[in-house]
């Protein structure tokens, strides 16, 4: 049985008289200690999916359909009190921008100790020791002094290390990291990512990595989900997807990688832009940007095809499968 299983998740945002659908029929699962990448352009619904798991979607968004099964319980149906025992305890999050994630008026120590005291019955002194130990694990020099400092006294990279330490504090079984390195200096991005992966590996924590960067995903994760306009369009083992992408959108993403482009050439961008939520095209939502589009793509939402843990939502792929 998987550790975390999301089934048929749908998220809606009622805005005035409209109701925008941010996620449509999203399903995936995560095993213990596994690393899963969720990839897509901005606006694809990756972050919404991540926040929906802990029911942290910003108002007025809400989960309208679907189940989120974690250790046998459905998070989507939990009361706020029950959810609090999961949030920051069993499933922890790492946000995009460490400059905005830490509260500017509280010390690092306060922001760490409160997690431990909320979820574990620890004395303040003991909690402080655990916090210092975690700061040491994320390779923050002189943690005894750092713990009493305020976020603004630390560099961006340091702050993200603190956030990672906070995420690891309660020995969770899942960490959801939403673009954890995008806001950082390019020179330290790899370093922070390496640290995160290493720590997840040693503590056997499952990692859900949300990113727009297929390159990172290919180095870090075992399985990958590609999202487009609020829907999963391709899912499979990361190597399979990188080396043998089938969905035209995934193809486009891979072709756009800088290492796939010859030096001096233009990047191979996918033509067009992701549709906004209030203007999602009928049929396959990717069809206006797709070179293989047919009449069918314009009218009918493609179902999933594939085998052995591979899923692709594409009429073109489906027709190829049938020919074989």
């Amino acid at each position: 049985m998987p550790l975390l299983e999301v089934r048929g998740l749908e998220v809606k945002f009622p805005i005035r008289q409209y109701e925008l659908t941010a996620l449509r029929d999203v399903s995936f699962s995560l095993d213990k200690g596994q690393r899963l990448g969720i990839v897509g352009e901005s606006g694809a619904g990756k972050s919404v999916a991540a926040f929906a798991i802990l029911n942290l979607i910003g108002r007025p968004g809400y989960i309208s359909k679907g189940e989120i099964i974690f250790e046998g319980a459905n998070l989507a149906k939990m009361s706020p009190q029950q959810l609090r025992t999961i949030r920051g305890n069993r499933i922890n999050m790492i946000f995009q921008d460490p400059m905005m994630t830490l509260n500017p008026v509280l010390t690092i120590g306060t922001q760490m100790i409160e997690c431990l005291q909320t979820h574990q019955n620890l004395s303040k002194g003991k909690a402080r020791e655990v916090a210092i130990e975690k700061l040491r694990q994320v390779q923050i020099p002189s943690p005894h002094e750092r713990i009493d400092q305020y976020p603004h006294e630390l560099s961006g990279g340091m702050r993200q290390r603190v956030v990672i330490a906070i995420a690891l504090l309660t020995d969770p079984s899942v960490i959801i990291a939403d673009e954890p390195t995008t806001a950082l200096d390019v020179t330290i991005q790899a370093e922070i990512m390496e640290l995160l992966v290493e720590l997840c590996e040693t503590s056997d924590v499952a990692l859900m990595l949300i990113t727009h960067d297929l390159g990172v995903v290919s180095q870090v994760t075992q399985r990958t989900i590609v999202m487009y306009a609020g829907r999963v369009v391709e899912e499979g083992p990361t190597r399979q997807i990188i080396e043998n992408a089938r969905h035209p959108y995934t193809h486009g993403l891979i072709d756009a990688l800088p290492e796939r482009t010859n030096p001096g050439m233009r990047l191979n961008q996918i033509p067009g832009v992701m549709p906004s939520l209030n203007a999602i095209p009928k049929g396959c939502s990717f069809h206006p940007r797709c070179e293989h589009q047919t009449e069918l793509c314009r009218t009918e939402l493609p179902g999933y095809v594939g085998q052995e843990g591979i899923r692709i939502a594409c009429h073109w792929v489906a027709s190829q499968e049938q020919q074989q």
Partner: protein
Amino acid sequence: MIAFLVRRLGQALVVMFIISLISFSIQDNLGDPLRELVGQSVSEAERQELRDEMGLNDPFMVQYWRFLKKAVHGDLGNSYFFKRPALEVIMEKFPATMELVFGATLIILLFSVPVGVYCAINPRSWLTKLMMGLSIVGISIPVFLTAIMLIYLFAIGLGWLPSYGRGETTMVGFWETGLLTRDGLVHLILPSVALSSIMLPLFIRLVRSEMMEVLEQEYIRFAWAKGLSRTRIWFLHALKNTLLPVITVGGVQIGTMIAYTILTETVFQWPGMGFLFLEAVNRVDTPLIIAYLIVVGLIFVITNTIVDLIYGLVNPTVRLAGGQA
């Protein structure tokens, strides 16, 4: 810390310099000190002689310097009306005004934060709508009208509370206080409520809008993701960030508050500095006017410094020690 104090001191000096210049020009132009001393019956020649003797014909800067030297030693001249040192007369009334301000500040602090926070975390509740409606009505009623209405209702109509004066006071050292007797406290209620009546809705609205902005911040979302309790998120994580801008605005509003004491004291015949000041204006009692300006200037400078210090203590990103910000 030292750098902060030096900068603050510099600003204070500039402000006090401006006030002293204004004060001095008032003294120079308002009323004739000679007439106050010798009356009208002295001949022109004698007057000129006296003027020379008193240094009234000296160049402006010389006179100003003399004024400044005396002022620094607390000598602002004798009140024409009271025939006593003006500073002494003002300082006798100082405690009355300060206790009034204290009462009003207490009311503002006690109500603005809880109500503002409630309105921010329950934006759709009917109570919030009622509060926001009342607050805009409150802002639209001038302080002196609130004062009159309070007197009319609670003093004349219901007869529950006294309508004027400080009631029974006791001396604690040089400080004449009304806070220690029941009568004194009862007398303080209506004036304090009146003085707080405009500031309170203003602060409720301020706390609410700042808090709503803070609640949208990423670190609050992170706090939710950490599974913290609602009370901890609202009253520690959000409130502490909310209070920073509120403190700054509060500092600016102190000036307004002092101005409103003049109105409140007039309506309630509260024997404070503002009441005295208006009397002094009507009597053209120049030394007393100057003494009031200087004391009020000092109050501004001191309270603004204190507010800055508190801000620095609450906000870790401001370093009082100087160095990198």
